[in-house]
C-alpha cells in the first residue's frame, strides 16, 4: 500500500511539472550518496583534489560550493531531480538561497560507492536479504486476444527490439476470471510469464553468474529474485532468443534506469511434445551490473 501511494505521489509530481522530468522526493539511496560524497570531498583520496575527484566522477557544479554546506543538514531544503537517460540534479538551499547546485550521472558505482566487482560479489546476498515480498500491482491492463482463450497485454514497453518487451499473457481460469497464464501447454507464453512473475512459489533458479575474473554458482528462489528486481525498481523485459522443438532460451533484461545498469539473464526451459517442462531448479546464466548510464541512447 505504501509503495503504491509513493508511486502515485511520484506520478502526481511528474504530472504537474512543465519540463517533463521524473522526480522522486530524495530516495534514501540518493540521499545516502549525497551525504557520503560531500563527506568524501572534504577528505582528499587517491591523491586527487576535490575538483579533480568531481571531474573524474562527472559531478558538475552549476552554482555554489560544497564548502558552504553546514555540518548538519536539518535546516536545509534538498531537492533532487532525475532526468531519464541523463542523470540527477541536486540543490541544497537555505531560506531561499542556493548553497550548492550540482548534476551527476546515474552511475551505480558512484551512487552506491562500490565498484562493480564488489557489487557482483555481494549480489547473491543482496537478493537473499530482500525483505519485501513480490507485490502484484492491481492496475487495469488492456489486453488483446491472440487465440481462443489466450490474451496478451498491450501498450508494452520494449527494449531495443519489439521482440524484447514487458508483454504478459493471460487466460481465463475455471471460474471464468482472467489471470496470468500458467498453462504448460503454452510453453512460450508460460516461459515469458515465469521470467516476470512468481507464478509458482517453490520454483528455484540455478544461477551461473559471470564475474570479472571468474564465475559463481548458486541457487535461490525465483520469487526472491523477482522481489529483489521489484525492490530495485527494475523493469523486466523478456524475449525468446532461441525457439527449438525441445528448448526455449529466453533473454531477460532487468533494467534499472535510476542507477544506470542492466542485469541480463539467459534462461533455459526444456520443451517436450509442445509442453514446457518445469525443471526445478531452472538453469540461468546471469551477467549483472552491465553499465548503461554511459552509453549513447538512440
Amino acid at each position, binding site marked *: 500500500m505504501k509503495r503504491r501511494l509513493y508511486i502515485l505521489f511520484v506520478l502526481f509530481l511528474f504530472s504537474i511539472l512543465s519540463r517533463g522530468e521524473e522526480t522522486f522526493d530524495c530516495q534514501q539511496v540518493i540521499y545516502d550518496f549525497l551525504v557520503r560524497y560531500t563527506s568524501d570531498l572534504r577528505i582528499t583520496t587517491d*591523491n586527487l583534489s576535490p575538483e579533480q575527484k568531481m571531474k573524474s566522477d562527472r559531478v558538475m557544479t552549476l552554482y555554489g560550493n560544497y564548502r558552504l554546506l553546514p555540518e548538519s543538514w536539518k535546516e536545509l531544503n534538498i531537492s533532487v531531480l532525475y532526468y531519464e537517460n541523463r542523470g540527477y540534479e541536486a540543490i541544497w538551499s537555505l531560506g531561499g538561497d542556493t548553497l550548492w547546485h550540482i548534476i551527476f550521472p546515474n552511475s551505480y558505482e558512484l551512487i552506491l560507492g562500490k565498484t*562493480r566487482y564488489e557489487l557482483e560479489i555481494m549480489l547473491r546476498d543482496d537478493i537473499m536479504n530482500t525483505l519485501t515480498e513480490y507485490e502484484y500491482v492491481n492496475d487495469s491492463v488492456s489486453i488483446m486476444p491472440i487465440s481462443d482463450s489466450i490474451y496478451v497485454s498491450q501498450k508494452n514497453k520494449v527494449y531495443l527490439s519489439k521482440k524484447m518487451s514487458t508483454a504478459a499473457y493471460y487466460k481465463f481460469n475455471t471460474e471464468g476470471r482472467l489471470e496470468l497464464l500458467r498453462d504448460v501447454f503454452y510453453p512460450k507464453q508460460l516461459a515469458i510469464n515465469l521470467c516476470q512473475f512468481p507464478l509458482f512459489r517453490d520454483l528455484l533458479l540455478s544461477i551461473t553468474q559471470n564475474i570479472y575474473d571468474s564465475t559463481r554458482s548458486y541457487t535461490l528462489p525465483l520469487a526472491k529474485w523477482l522481489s529483489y528486481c521489484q525492490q530495485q525498481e527494475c523493469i523486466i523485459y523478456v524475449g525468446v532468443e532461441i525457439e527449438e522443438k525441445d528448448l526455449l532460451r529466453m533473454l531477460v533484461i532487468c533494467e534499472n534506469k535510476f542507477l544506470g545498469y542492466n542485469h*541480463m539473464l*539467459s534462461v533455459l526451459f526444456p520443451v517436450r511434445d509442445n509442453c514446457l517442462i518445469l525443471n526445478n531448479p531452472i538453469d540461468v546464466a546471469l*551477467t549483472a551490473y552491465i553499465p548503461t548510464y554511459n552509453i549513447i541512447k538512440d
Partner: protein
Amino acid sequence: MIKKFLLLSILSASVVVQATVQVKITSGLDNPALQAKMECTMSQLLTEINAAQSANRSLNFGAIGVPQSVQVSMSMLWENTQFVCTETLLEEKCISTNNGYQFRAIPLQIKPDPEEQLDEDEYQEAVISFDHQGVLLSFYFSLSTTQYSQVIRGSKELTDVRRRQVILDYTERFRTAYNQKDIQFMEQIFSDDALIITGQVIKQKPVDGFFLPDKIIYKKYTKHEYLANLRRSFARNGYIRVTFDEIKVLRHPTDPTIYGVTLHQGYTSSNYHDDGYLFILWDFSDESQPQILVRTWQPDSFNGGKLPEEEVFSLDDFDI
C-alpha cells in the same frame, strides 16, 4: 488525365532506378589520373547497383575491377537488402586517410522489395574507401544503431541485443582491468594479432612568425609492444583511474561476429591526465572469449577545438 499522370509516375520511377550515376571529385585530391580512376570506379559501381536493383538480380562486378574481398562483402550486404543511388550526379570531397582515400555520405536508399515505393525513412549513406593507388578497398553503410535495425531485417535480433549487452559488459571489464592494473586480463583480451594505434598531438613551431596548426601523428603498436608499455605505466603509477562515456556500439554490416565500440575515455594517473576517443574492434566469433582486434586512441581536442567526428576512428576505417 489520371491515366497519363500514372504513366508519367511509372516512367519517372523507372528512370530513377535505372539511372547512370556520374561521380565527380570536387576537392581533396591533386592527382588528375588518380582522380579519374576513382571517379570511374565509383560511377560504374553505383550505376551497376541501380541496374541490378532494377532487374532484381545479383551484383555483377565483371567490368568494374572490384577486389574479391569487396565483391564478397557487397554481395552479402545485397543479399540482406538491395539499395539504389537516386542521384545521377554526385559531387564528392576526397578525404585522405592512413590507407588512402575515402568518400563519405554517398546517398543511397534502401529498397528491400523492388516493388516498394521509395521512402524517405529508408535513406542511408555509404562510405567508399580506396588505397593510395586508387584501388577499391571497401564499401560500407555508415549506420546508426537505429538505422541498422531497419536494414538488416529478419536477422537474429535478440542474439544481437544480447551480444550488445555482452559488448558493454566486456568494455566495462576492460576499463576495470586498467583501474586494477590487471596485465593478465589485457594479455587475454587482446588478440595476438591485435593492432593498436595511438594518436599524439604535435605542436608545430611558428615559421617566420606565423603559427602553424597542430597535427596528429599516429603510431602503430603490436600487442607485445603495447603491453610492454602498459606494464611500465602500471609499475610507475600509484593509481590509475579510467572512465568511459558516450559509448556507442555498432555491429559490422556483413559480419555479425564483429562489433565496433567508440567511446570517450578519461585517463587519470598519479602524474598525468588526458581525455580522448577510444575505438575498440571486438571479435565475437568465440562468444565465451571475445577478443580485441583493434584498439585506437586519439586526443579529443585538436587546434583549440573538439576533434571533428569524421576524424574519429570507427568501424568504417578498418577492413575485416
